[in-house]
């Protein structure tokens, strides 16, 4: 991986595309750590936090949001040129976000239904991940991202080591904190076994199923998991909705949604 360890402080820039700003807020929310981050890097472009903006090139670029409008495409190409190490932050940037639900519909119909003068609105047919348009050096998952992972990423990049961001399942975090499994003990369909860790199993620790905010884990076996949940009585409609949220357009959740929506599947019912 590229290291950005230089004699001078690395220059950091934060960019926003189609998103809710929640991931940038996580950076501001790093509280005590934010000053330590500011000591390690020059924050040269971060409009959510300060009006001063210095031109590139930057050492580290954090990109929030998905590619959603025609204007986004030349902009992300230019940002890629300006950043040595490009990191996508959050579900929008890594898989298209909740706004990618429109990818299953007709954008023109939505525009007509929502806006008085649809002609003023320019929108792409699909909301897509940053990596669908430019090479990405690292992805921070989550909706929103986890502050601890963000601090870990910045510390690692500053000294030129690989960030410790696991790709195993949420179940690992669930067991490490001693949480009782909601799937096994309550029969609630939980996405934890196929979702990447990072939230410290937040929802199961509060008696709720995992909603898949961090996207697919390494080698996710959605067909087996949902087959088991179906045999336990969960409907395909409910299971389809569960994968069709913040990371709906990630290749694995996307394929699973469409498989569930396509009716009985012999392979799944083995």
């Amino acid at each position, binding site marked *: 991986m590229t290291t950005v360890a230089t004699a001078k402080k690395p220059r950091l820039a934060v960019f926003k595309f189609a998103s809710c700003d929640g991931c940038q807020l996580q950076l501001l929310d790093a509280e005590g750590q934010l000053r*330590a981050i500011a000591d390690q890097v020059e924050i040269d472009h971060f409009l959510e936090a300060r009006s001063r903006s210095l031109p590139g090139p930057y050492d580290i670029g954090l990109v929030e949001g998905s590619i959603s409008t025609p204007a986004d495409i030349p902009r992300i190409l230019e940002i890629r040129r300006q950043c040595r190490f490009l990191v996508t932050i959050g579900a929008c940037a890594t898989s298209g976000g909740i706004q990618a639900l429109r990818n299953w519909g007709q954008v023109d119909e939505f525009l007509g239904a929502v806006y008085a003068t649809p002609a003023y609105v320019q929108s792409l047919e699909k909301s897509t991940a940053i990596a669908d348009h430019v090479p990405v050096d690292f992805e921070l998952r989550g909706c929103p991202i986890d502050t601890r992972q963000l601090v870990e990423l910045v510390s690692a990049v500053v000294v030129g080591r690989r960030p410790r961001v696991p*790709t195993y*399942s949420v179940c690992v975090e669930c067991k490490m904190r001693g949480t*009782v499994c909601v799937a096994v*003990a309550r029969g609630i369909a939980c996405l934890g076994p196929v979702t990447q860790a990072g939230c410290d199993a937040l929802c199961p620790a509060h008696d709720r199923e995992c909603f898949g905010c961090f996207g697919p*884990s390494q080698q996710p*076996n959605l067909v*087996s998991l949902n087959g088991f949940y179906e045999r336990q009585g969960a409907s395909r409609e409910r299971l389809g909705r569960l994968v069709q949220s913040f990371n709906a357009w990630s290749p694995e959740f996307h394929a699973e949604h469409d498989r569930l929506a396509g009716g009985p599947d012999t392979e799944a019912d083995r």
Partner: protein
Amino acid sequence: MPDSSSIPGDWRWLDADGLQILIDLLRGRGFRVVGPRIADGAIVIGDIDSAAQLPTGWLDDQDGGSYRLRQDKAAGTFDHVVGPHSLKNFLFPARETLQHWTRDDRGWHDTTPAEPPRPLAVIGVRGCDLAALAIQDRVFLGGDHVDPAYKARRERLFLLAVNCRRAAATCFCHSMGCGPAAGPGFDLALTETDGRFAVETGSEAGAALLAELAARGSPVTPAEILDEAAIEQVRDIPRRLGREMHARRAEPGRPVPRSLDTDGIRDLLFSNLEHPRWQQVADRCLSCANCTLVCPTCFCSSVSDVADLSGDHASRERQWASCFTLEHSQMHGGNARPTVASRYRQWLTHKLAGWIDQFGSSGCTGCGRCITWCPVGIDLTAEVAAIREAPTP
């Protein structure tokens, strides 16, 4: 007046009030007391300060990927079996700081906390979990490399065991020779019968505690000593369960009672490394690692050195690891176990075969946790049976 001197091997009666006095005595001696408690729909191991917190009248129904509690008026205090937690959660915690260093003007200083861990007393430890503890002791304390953090906690452990008189469908300790009778390895062991407890003394520490209890006298039954005939009757309670477990047969509409044929199991597995069953189970397996993390004998961890952003604080952190994650087998130049089939095979062959070469015993005690807490109910006893039924020629 009851006789107040107890020695290992002694048996005494205890009533529910006596159990409370035992808890009070342990707390008075500075122990953190933990035991079975209901939390979030399961019986976990949590802090206990009153015997009323124990799950009297509750039973657990367990099957592959399923755990449900239910109330039963006839159930005693310990008629549930093992839940998602085990002694491992306490002796080999999921996350631990092994070292901590701080830098100032004069250089680096070892700022690792030095105070010894708080003594821990665990109520309700079963035969399978005493066996698991003996296995973890071999891993962490055996040989040349003793784990100091584990050792410090182990030396401050008091075990109040329980002899099972009910088993779940997922329990197969009878196949592994680890239960349902508890022991050896406990300080005191309880057998519940007719609303009171027979207590067997297993160690000097247990004897001392029981002596103190007898000296106090519990208001209802003054910790009287059992005679030979009574001891025999009490001993027969877990033995009877063991015989029942050997005789259990599958019944329609009920969870299959588990058992494992361990005859020649090491050679069976090692001579079937290319069996098609590994791929069949991999098609179901999520590689989620739950089985390894709930297993009371699995001991893998990963250690990383972590510095804060200022670079003035560094620590060496250990956390649980699992052979089901890709990280576990990632090496320079590639991954040694890139497929789920190879990782499932690693888990099963290590647990049931390689462990015998490595530590002189099976790595499985028959506690059934990996079956219950697998989100898709994968059952190692069924996997072994399938290979045994049709081994590769």
